[in-house]
């Protein structure tokens, strides 16, 4: 599961957002073609500038995965605490960090936790299981 998916996922039960991640296996899969300092980051830029990235979701996920990201050795992937504007000086480097964080970092094993009721959704082999149990489905 990419963090981009995590950024759009909300709890199917309570609509709680963002879901907390606990992770036991994280992997960095570089995108092809390899991204350089200049990009192309048009996808991330477009998402960001159209307000489709929930900044708290990204920083929250970054915080949840802090230890594991350090093990990946792809840099510390630090992000500003609030969403940067396109004319801020290090905008391109922020886009790069965002690109790696959202699209190249994959959560392979772990759980997504609904912060409201504690329901855990298991991530197995990179696929989050969002299936609801029979008695959880509202009539």
């Amino acid at each position, binding site marked *: *599961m990419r963090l*981009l998916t995590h950024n759009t996922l909300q709890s199917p039960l309570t609509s709680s957002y963002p879901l907390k991640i606990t992770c036991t296996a994280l992997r960095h899969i570089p995108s092809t073609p390899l991204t350089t300092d200049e990009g192309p980051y048009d996808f991330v830029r477009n998402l960001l500038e159209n307000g489709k990235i929930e900044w708290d979701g990204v920083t929250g996920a970054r915080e949840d995965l802090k230890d594991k990201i350090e093990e990946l050795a792809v840099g510390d992937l630090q992000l500003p605490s609030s969403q940067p504007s396109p004319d801020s000086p290090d905008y391109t480097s922020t886009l790069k960090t965002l690109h790696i964080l959202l699209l190249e970092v994959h959560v392979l094993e772990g759980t997504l936790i609904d912060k409201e009721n504690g329901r855990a959704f298991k991530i197995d082999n990179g*696929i989050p*299981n969002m299936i609801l149990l*029979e008695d959880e489905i509202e009539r």
Partner: protein
Amino acid sequence: MSRPELTGAAANFYNDTEARKYDTNSRMIGIQAEITQRALELLQLDDSFPNFILDVGCGSGLSGKVLEEAGHYWCGLDVSRDMLNVASERETSTKGDLAHHDMGTGLPFRAASFDGMISISALQWLCYSNSSKQVPKRRLVRFFSALYGVLKRGARAVLQFYPETPEQAVLISECAAKVGFAGGVVVDYPNSTKAKKHYLVLSFDRGYSTPKGLQSAAQAGVRVDSSGSSKRVKVVKKKGKGKTKEWIEHKKEVQRKKGFENVRKDTKFTGRKRKDKF
């Protein structure tokens, strides 16, 4: 051909062996790719930047592959874990992501997350109930209202499906209209049993009129607009006049000429209708 929908839940039908068969069958690959191409065409995306597409019923990722080739990022949902396992083995997938979910229970996404949505050969599964707790209509409405939420304004959704009966197509489009979608069903090649494909094209734009279906000859289609009034262009089978008195007398005459001996005599009762109460 029997319908897999009648054999039980999708998650059970697409087990490991079936999923692998599906993914390696060259006919299936060709058909799925072709349908996805057409769905993308109907989606009319803004191609100036990569879009984020939701693929409901992504299966083994055959449709996702086409999306990637077109330069889009996608997120796929499927109810069959075995299909998803096959999809996750696909190494070329650099732009897709997967989640295990049942579309009949809604969609677990934030509002306005996606630039478009496609669904290839999946929607008809919602028309069948596999337990007493599954009500097809309720599942359809829940799915469509969730879809209405997760698409960004101005986005479109294209859902290719195989209706078992025309009533199913109407039920599906009515449920979509009920939650506020405009659009309708586009039927490609309506006169061919094999090439015939139904695409439900949905839009937020009230004035949206669905594109014409591809066709080889004449066209028949199903259209539903947002007002809920559904009009079906039904192909009425031309009825013959039946067996009239003239027809019977002519037939008897021919048989007599051929030399048959047991031909009944012409009487005042010939070709007369029986009384209703008989």
